[in-house]
């Protein structure tokens, strides 16, 4: 990061290579649309480059990048709410046909269902869950990224997990 901060393009390129999957996954979960996610991730990296001077060495680089990306997702969300005409349908949450619990679910389907359930969560809970399970961030770091007190992070996590529990329960049973 120190080299990237001095304006070394190659060092920044290495940073992009290292974090692009994770940042893309965060935006994908938060925007629920691949094309938008790609745009927002690109914008986030460009903003990081422009503001590399404002990187605070006390934070981890990942914390800083996640903060930029989640802020941009919030902006994007606001923009789309302000211009509903530009709203894209996104991936509709899958409402799987009623299945008996004993029916085996394919792994992919479980994941799709979980993602569907995740997509229905409020944005703040979703962001906290994604950051926690994508990169094992601490509560403190998530708080810094989202600008929330640690206790709020914890309660968002608990509520988010509670909302996903019915879906997770199916997964456990299948795992037997």
């Amino acid at each position, binding site marked *: 990061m120190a080299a990237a901060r001095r304006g070394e393009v190659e060092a*920044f390129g290495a940073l992009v290579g290292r974090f692009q999957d994770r*940042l*893309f996954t965060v935006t994908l979960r938060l925007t629920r649309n691949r094309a938008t996610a*790609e745009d927002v991730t*690109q914008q986030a990296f460009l903003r990081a*480059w422009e503001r590399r001077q*404002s990187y605070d060495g006390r934070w981890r680089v990942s914390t800083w990048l996640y903060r930029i990306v989640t802020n941009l997702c919030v902006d994007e969300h606001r923009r789309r709410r302000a211009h509903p005409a530009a709203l894209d349908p996104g991936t509709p949450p899958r409402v799987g046909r009623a299945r008996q619990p004993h029916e085996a679910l394919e792994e992919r389907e479980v994941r799709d269902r979980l993602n569907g359930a995740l997509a229905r969560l409020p944005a703040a809970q979703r962001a906290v869950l994604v950051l926690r*399970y994508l990169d094992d961030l601490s509560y403190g770091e998530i708080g810094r990224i989202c600008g929330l007190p640690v206790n709020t992070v914890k309660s968002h996590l608990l509520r988010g997990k509670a909302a996903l529990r019915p879906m997770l329960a199916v997964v456990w049973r299948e*795992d037997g």
Partner: protein
Amino acid sequence: MKEEQALREALAPRPAPPSLFPHVMGPVRRAQEARKRLLALAPRLSVEASDRGLTRVALGRPGQAPPPASGPAARWVTRARRELREYLEGRRTFFAVPWDPAVLGEFQGRVLGITARIPFGEVRSYGWIAKAVGDPGAARAVGTALATNPVPLVIPCHRVVKSDGMLGGYSFPGVRKEWLLTLEGSVSRLVGCLSTRILCRRGCPHELRVRDANRIAFASIAEARAQGYRPCGVCKPA
């Protein structure tokens, strides 16, 4: 725990699309290239001034320009050199040094007066300027007035582009409009100081004294206010 495990699996990183990397690094490389070229430009600028302000900014060796005729003119030249260097280094977003309106014709004076007020990092069309000077049909005449701008950079004629999104011509030899717009697009206008919690426009005398470790860039005044910063009383970012 199974629950944790299931969540971790469901939320595992997905590979970013292969087009993402070039879409990020392309603009970054271009910005860096523009920066390098503009930095090389600073020592090659020749500046002339009268008592009232700048009369000419052009490319050439500094020694080529006739020596300033008076004390005030010499001061304007020194100040303009410093401000131009800071601007090209990305440390300044506005010029405080005045230009001499006597070197401009009546129409050109009006056109350049409006152009000088286009904020850093923004662009306007030739037609927009024509309308602003009260002659909506005169977009071409505006183009001519800008092409003969005697003080480029200080009067930002590079911020005027064609209405179809193309950049249009630029008559400063050796400099491309694209570099300047890239530079301005990549420099944040607002800088806060972590220790004093004061927000300045980039280039304000107070901002230039802020140590690197205390610098923080902001995208908007609202963002800075939300974090407890107050606007500087000297450069008044509002």
